[in-house]
């Protein structure tokens, strides 16, 4: 304000005395310099500010480079009803837009490995829009059209059998929209214990292969770029953030279970969370003690029936659209004590994703496994990350010296590098192939200890199928959020069994169970004989795998009435035949069996497509089944579109990739760039500028007072 008058006076003062004129001149020049400095500094500020705002993602990361308070807050709620063997879950994901702009939320989330998603509802305020199943491409088109038109729309896609993506378009500023998913799964029942897992996050997966040349170099939906082995890498690699970075407003899960096992439940426990259970007759209500839990580890709930009441058989029946569906479970209740000498190959994942508590669990598991070896056995240890390394050239006898060396080796294992599983599997499965005769007396087994954090599962399953030979492959899932789809399927293709460790304290129980089981399957060559029925009957799985001690045989059938009996036969370990029959007339009524049947049939169709391409015929069959039973599959998605537009198309819409939490106890291999600038230049500039102004003020003051 004062500058112009000063300058004006400077002009007027010209004819005064020389010394004073010089001084005045200096004053004027210094003021002009101050002005110039101000003009010079200002663009720097402007540049810095525009660089930060241009991308529209300012809220995603705070000043220290931490992800925090992203614009879209996400919270979930699991309402689980267990009845008999089927657990039905209503999963509510609420997306809250805290920003001033319209948002699209994209969230990659895991579901249990055998979940069948059969319903989706979008809730906007009071209104409910029920979604329906469409072919994937059509669902995408409908969604994109609605998004463009400014309508509320939601779409749920399957990326992997246990990995899904929710897209939610046009969340108004400050509003919340919820997407409700209904899915069901079978409860795992083995060794007299039921187990249910609710995964809440995923371990960042390793993407093998070379980056695709044509893929854009900048960031897409996820942290990974598409590679030759995993062309959809960017769709399954959501950013991970630490639980403390999102605060307690986001990424919380409310979990409520209602267990109606149909029999008295003695005990409910969880290795992952402290639970509060209330009994109401046969019914048990279960919830984590702390209320909303952070979504950084699987919620595992186990319950066991009262001693002596563990079921050995169960039959459920449902009539749906004029068809009969039956679910039968049978525990053969066989055990064996005969010990054959074994050749045990341990394969341990020491990749970067195992860093943290996981590698500790893996080491403990491996040591536990070593302890089960008896003198006649042979063993080897193979570790893999980016490279594969075997402890011994070939399997060696389990004598004291070798075991001591193995223990030392295991103690020294640390997690680092990539997850190149294929070479490790090749070594483990191809081991000793030429000298088949010398090990002919040994039962050959592979124990695979990993978190399954890879993107190319299908290729690995195919490799296991081809190279397995006479071996059996057992998988041990490690960490807070293991990829159980991988564990289960790898064990299925490997004719073995799987288990998952949630906690270091859990290692002993789970592994002793597995190693006891591994002695040998109790029942092989299982054949199912359906009762004579009027129409054609279909039962899945078509070829039940071998049964290990404590494992049940589960069959789901269509077109079989609840009468007559089911004949089951198999070969015992000593070679003799074993058979039993299951009375179907005492079936309890069940719900959702048709979906389970549909899912099983889809899985068996998809099995044929492991090696890569899906035939048009099986694709058509899958789509038909999915539409009939309203299921999400690789080829079908749920989409819900509101009728009226809410966003003016002139207003911009920003996409927010909602991150997932880093699994508890794991240390990230993704390192954030640290903050590497100080306030020094800013403070120096500010100080200098201020001093110049103060100096000018002093001079002015002197003139005025004179």
């Amino acid at each position, binding site marked *: 304000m004062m500058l112009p008058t000063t300058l004006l006076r400077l002009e007027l003062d010209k004819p005064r005395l020389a010394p004073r004129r010089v001084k005045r001149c200096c004053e004027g020049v210094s003021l002009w310099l101050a002005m110039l400095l101000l003009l010079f500094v200002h663009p720097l*500020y402007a540049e810095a500010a525009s660089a930060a705002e241009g991308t529209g993602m300012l809220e995603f990361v705070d000043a220290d480079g931490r992800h925090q308070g992203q614009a879209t807050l996400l919270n979930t709620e699991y309402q689980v009803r267990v009845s008999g063997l089927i657990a039905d879950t209503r999963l509510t994901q609420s997306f809250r837009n805290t920003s001033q702009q319209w948002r699209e939320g994209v969230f990659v989330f895991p579901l249990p490995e055998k979940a069948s998603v059969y319903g989706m509802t979008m809730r906007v305020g009071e209104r409910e829009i029920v979604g329906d199943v469409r072919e994937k491409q059509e669902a995408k088109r409908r969604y994109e059209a609605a998004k463009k038109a400014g309508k509320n729309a939601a779409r749920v896609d399957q990326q992997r059998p246990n990995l899904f993506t929710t897209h939610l378009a046009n969340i108004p500023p400050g509003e919340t929209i919820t997407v409700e998913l209904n899915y069901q799964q079978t409860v795992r029942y083995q060794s007299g214990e039921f187990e249910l897992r609710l995964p809440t996050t995923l371990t960042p997966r390793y993407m093998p292969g070379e980056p695709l040349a044509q893929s854009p170099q900048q960031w897409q939906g996820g942290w990974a770029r598409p590679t030759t082995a995993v062309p959809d890498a960017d769709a399954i690699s959501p950013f991970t953030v630490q639980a403390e970075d999102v605060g307690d407003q986001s990424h919380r899960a409310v979990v409520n279970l209602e267990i109606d096992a149909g029999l008295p439940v003695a005990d409910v426990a969880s290795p992952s969370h402290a639970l509060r259970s209330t009994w109401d007759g046969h019914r048990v209500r279960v919830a984590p003690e702390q209320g909303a839990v952070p979504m950084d580890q699987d919620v595992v709930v186990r319950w066991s029936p009262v001693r002596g009441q563990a079921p050995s058989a169960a039959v459920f029946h449902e009539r749906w659209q004029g068809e009969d569906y039956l679910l039968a479970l049978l525990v053969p209740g066989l055990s064996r004590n005969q010990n054959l000498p074994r050749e045990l190959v341990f394969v341990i994942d020491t990749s970067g994703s195992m860093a943290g508590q996981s590698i500790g669990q893996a080491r403990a598991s491996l040591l536990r496994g070593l302890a089960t070896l008896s003198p006649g056995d042979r063993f080897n240890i193979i570790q893999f990350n980016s490279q594969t390394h075997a402890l011994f050239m070939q399997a060696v006898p389990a004598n004291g010296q070798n075991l001591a060396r193995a223990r030392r080796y295991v103690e020294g294992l640390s997690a680092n590098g990539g997850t190149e599983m294929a070479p490790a599997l090749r070594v483990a499965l191809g081991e000793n192939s030429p000298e088949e005769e010398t090990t002919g007396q040994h039962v050959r087994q592979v124990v695979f200890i990993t978190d399954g954090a890879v993107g190319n599962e299908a290729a690995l399953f195919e490799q296991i199928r081809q190279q397995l030979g006479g071996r059996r492959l057992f998988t041990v899932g490690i960490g807070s959020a293991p990829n159980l789809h991988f564990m289960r399927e790898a064990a299925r293709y490997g004719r073995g069994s799987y288990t998952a460790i949630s906690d270091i304290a859990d290692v002993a129980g789970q592994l002793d169970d597995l190693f006891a089981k591994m002695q040998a399957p109790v029942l092989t060559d299982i054949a199912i004989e359906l009762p004579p029925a009027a129409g054609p009957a279909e039962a899945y799985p078509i070829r039940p795998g071998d049964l290990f001690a404590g494992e049940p045989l589960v069959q789901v059938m269509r077109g079989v009435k609840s009468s007559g009996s089911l004949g089951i036969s198999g070969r015992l370990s000593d070679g003799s035949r074993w058979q039993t029959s299951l009375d179907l007339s005492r079936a309890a009524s069940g719900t959702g069996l048709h979906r389970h049947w549909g899912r099983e049939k889809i899985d068996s169709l998809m099995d044929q497509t492991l090696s890569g391409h899906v035939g048009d015929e099986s694709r058509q069959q899958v789509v038909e089944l999915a539409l009939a039973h309203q299921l999400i599959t690789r080829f079908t998605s749920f989409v819900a579109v509101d009728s009226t537009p809410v966003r003016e198309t002139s207003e911009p819409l920003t996409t927010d990739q909602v991150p997932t939490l880093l699994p508890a106890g794991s240390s990230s291999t993704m390192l954030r*760039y640290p903050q590497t*600038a100080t306030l020094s230049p*800013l*403070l120096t500039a500010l100080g200098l500028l201020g001093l110049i102004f103060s100096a000018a003020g002093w001079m002015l*003051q002197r003139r005025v007072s004179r």
Partner: protein
Amino acid sequence: MNRLLLLLTVMFGTVLTVGLWIPFKALVAQELLELAWAESQARQIETRPWPWADTWPVARLSLPELGQSMIVLDGAHGESLAFGPGQVLGNAAGPGPVVIAGHRDTHFTSLRHLEAGSELKLQTRSGKWYRYRVNSIRVVDSRYEQIDTARLDDHTLLLVTCYPFDSLDSRGPLRYVVQATFEPVSVAAAGSDPLQIDTVAGL
């Protein structure tokens, strides 16, 4: 009026002092760190430069072409970066990649003069020098990119600092990343290395 002006002058004077204090501290701390580094090399243990420090010297980084040499501290929290570049990841003596971060306005301000082919040297506590050669320099946006340590080659050295170098914004999202690869040197060449002798004498 006089009083107001005095207040302003003192205030801005303080701001300026604080602003100048940061590079001054960075400069003086390096001198203190020299002592701690010499001690940790002599005794082969982690030596804290002053009793209440929450970091310690782990390596010496030298940019021979720019005639610069500095002590690298453990960790890249604000506390250690104020005194020297911080080792975010890895172990200079062990296998695996090494990532070092530093402030763009103090220790790492000279990174802008590096170019592909420039030589870098890293000395470990054992006194052994490792020679690296810069193979790429790029600017990344830290909001969208992270360092995937699983994908880094074992022989990699990453130097990270903020970008642009002259920006006043201390919280900008851009980072300047210098990637260098380990270069094995023959024993004879290492023996006649003037820098090595010089540094040992300097200690």
